[in-house]
């Protein structure tokens, strides 16, 4: 027996020597090198059988790659989204095969529709087991194809450098989006048969996003803009993604055109800019929606005419000529016919357009928006901010906005509180409204908020979350506690799935079908996770509550008990024309 052990020990020692001297990297190590070469220093993940060789390689890189262990893979995905949106970098997730991968589907679908660059590395069973219904085998290529920008299955360690270079390039270039890498266990554990030679991809043969618009497109657009009597700019997420804020400002100031923002375009223009008139869409402002019917030229920048913006599309801006600046050619004419399509990056397009447009004055036209603001203020804003009855969501956001001087980064979840956050926060800095727009994914905010904080640690990050949403990814409180990130969370607790309740009240005869919640004691739960917090139930303590939350060193949960049956207005009922926007 002793002899046997000696032999085993000798063999192990030999194996170790061999490992140390091995000339080439494993696929998993090559993956780590790829991450470093792409300047990735933060990843979000969750281990499991089929990704273990990669986690083992990661162990050797913990001094260079900060891995955040989430509590559910959906959290990894949303955290990576939050991270990408505040840092401008690619968010990276690392998860195991089967359920690890399928748990990531929701964030992938969210990222494709909100154009967020992600690289999702998903473990896969050994390649000889593919197609055998092996333990935790899911066809990730099959299930992610409809919801990702690109996917690829790596079955050979030698493929790692070239494929990862391609993955990062595709994720971040053009219209950004999620890329899925299905990484078989044998490709992770196997040795490369060549040295690592990582070369970043800067161009691909079959994928060439156009950044610089065509001259004739710009000329035509400038002509329409210069001849317009009532031009109107729609600012979308694309402006933030391309970092075109300064160019937009210069363009707006030269042409003096009023501009409104989509939900995800919020904070691209500071709210106090004289040309900024508000936000568009279902719960957007009154004038911004109604006056779409009077504009003669619409200049849409980096936005895709989502149905939440257009309402009944057959009645939307039918009188206007449309200049559509967009990086994705498939968006041109998809919903709204463009009279002057400008395919290109928003920043490049605005830079190129600036010398072509005339200095102008549209003060009269701009002032028409202010008339509507007066009505909206009287009918809605003032009422919502009047300190009467229970605390209203609007008061909380309004006060937070004042206290933070409009400079915090707001991460909103999905529902009434999301709309109220968008409506009442006075954004001064770009990249300050992080929310799930296209997919409307409840549960987005907790994970996205700590991702956002990691993406830009210097910023004050405040998550605004509904009591329903909070319970969709509540387990990520553990991640926040473990990482000690100073994320501030506000639950606007109305004890209802408020947005659905609002629709049931307005469109289903107040038949409240399964929208009332029996909620847990959120503060106690947070404490259980090691996160401090308190509940605010009275208006008198709201201000002090917000101060306490902000002053706290580390993560904090503030639960505010708000009016149960408040509705969000203005509102364009689903399928109605935007001009039929309701104020009550």
């Amino acid at each position, binding site marked *: 027996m002793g002899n046997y052990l000696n032999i085993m020990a000798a063999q192990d020692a030999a194996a170790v020597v061999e490992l140390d001297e091995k000339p080439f990297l494993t696929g998993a190590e090559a993956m780590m090198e790829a991450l470093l070469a792409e300047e990735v220093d933060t990843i979000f993940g969750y281990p499991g059988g089929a990704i273990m060789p990669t986690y083992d390689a990661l162990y050797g890189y913990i001094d260079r790659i900060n891995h955040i262990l989430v509590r559910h893979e959906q959290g990894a995905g949303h955290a990576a989204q939050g991270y990408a949106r505040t840092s401008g970098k690619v968010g990276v997730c690392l998860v195991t095969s089967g359920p690890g991968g399928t748990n990531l589907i929701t964030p992938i679908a969210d990222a494709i529709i909100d154009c967020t660059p992600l690289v999702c590395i998903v473990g896969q069973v050994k390649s000889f087991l593919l197609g055998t219904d092996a333990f935790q085998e899911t066809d990730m290529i099959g299930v992610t*194809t409809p919801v990702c920008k690109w996917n690829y299955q790596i079955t050979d360690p030698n493929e790692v450098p070239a494929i990862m270079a391609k993955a990062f390039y595709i994720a971040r270039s053009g219209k950004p989006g999620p890329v899925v890498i299905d990484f078989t266990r044998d490709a992770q554990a196997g040795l490369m048969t060549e040295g690592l030679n990582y070369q970043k991809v800067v161009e691909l043969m079959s994928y060439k996003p156009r950044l610089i618009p065509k001259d004739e497109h710009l000329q035509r657009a400038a002509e329409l803009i210069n001849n317009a009597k009532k031009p109107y700019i729609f600012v979308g997420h694309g402006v933030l993604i391309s970092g075109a804020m300064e160019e937009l400002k210069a363009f707006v100031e030269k042409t003096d055109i009023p501009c409104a923002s989509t939900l995800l375009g919020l904070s691209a223009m500071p709210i106090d800019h004289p040309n900024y008139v508000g936000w568009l869409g279902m719960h957007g402002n009154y004038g911004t929606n109604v006056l779409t019917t009077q504009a003669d030229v619409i200049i849409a920048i980096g936005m895709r005419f989502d149905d939440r913006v257009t309402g009944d599309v057959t009645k939307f801006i039918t009188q206007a000529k449309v200049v559509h600046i967009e990086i994705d*050619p*498939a968006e*041109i004419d998809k919903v709204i016919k463009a009279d002057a399509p400008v395919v290109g990056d928003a920043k490049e397009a605005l830079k190129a357009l600036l010398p072509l447009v005339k200095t102008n004055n549209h003060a009269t036209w701009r002032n028409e928006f202010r008339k509507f603001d007066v009505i909206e203020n009287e009918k809605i804003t003032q009422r919502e901010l009047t300190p009467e009855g229970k605390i209203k969501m609007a008061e909380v956001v309004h006060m937070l906005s004042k206290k933070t001087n409009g400079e915090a980064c707001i991460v909103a979840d999905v529902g009434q509180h999301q709309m109220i956050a968008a409506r009442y926060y006075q954004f001064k800095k770009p990249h300050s409204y992080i929310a799930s727009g296209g997919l409307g994914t409840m549960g987005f905010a907790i994970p996205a908020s700590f991702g956002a904080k990691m993406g830009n640690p210097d910023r004050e990050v405040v998550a605004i979350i509904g009591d329903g949403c909070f319970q969709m990814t509540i387990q990520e409180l553990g991640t926040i506690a473990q990482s000690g990130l100073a994320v501030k969370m506000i639950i606007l607790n109305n004890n209802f799935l408020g947005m659905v309740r609002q629709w049931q009240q307005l469109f289903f005869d107040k038949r409240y079908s399964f929208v009332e919640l029996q909620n847990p004691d959120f503060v106690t739960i947070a404490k259980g996770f090691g996160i401090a917090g308190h509940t605010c139930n009275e208006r008198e303590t709201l201000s002090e509550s917000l101060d306490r939350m902000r002053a706290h060193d580390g993560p904090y949960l503030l639960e505010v008990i708000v009016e149960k049956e408040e509705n969000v207005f203005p509102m364009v009922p689903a399928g109605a024309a935007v001009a039929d926007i309701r104020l009550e």
Partner: protein
Amino acid sequence: MLNKITILFTRRRINIESLTVSETERKGVSRYTIVMKHDKREEVEKLVRQIRKIIEVLAVFGYLDEESVYNEIALFKIATPMHSKKLDIETINKVYKAWVVYWELDYVVIEKAGTEEAILEFFRYIKPHGILEFVRSGRVTVGRTPQGLVEYLPEAEWEYYL
């Protein structure tokens, strides 16, 4: 790849009439010929742009019937038991431009290439003989333009088949 393309159709509830895939004269480059019916050209163009978004797709061309040269191929397996009506090979060859490509004692296989209409016309002609099996391919198509594939594809070091 096939899945990446077809899901764009199914998601939009657009039926694929036929689909043919083969490698082109360039190694590694495959050509998909997809036939669809639609009365709105705009809608088809939207779909074309969606297909272009697939990272691996090099180029997409949309053609109306009259803008392209196309053909399909069909095989007919016809029963020829003893005492059955004799096949009129001369008519089959000369009028219908179809050919017997295989025969046994009690059946023959006839190949007919042509447009969908020409194939259906032959179908009607041969039907009384008793069709055991009928199979028709998807279309193969080239555009009615003087350009070659090379002019559409991005410049690269291509390997050619001789």
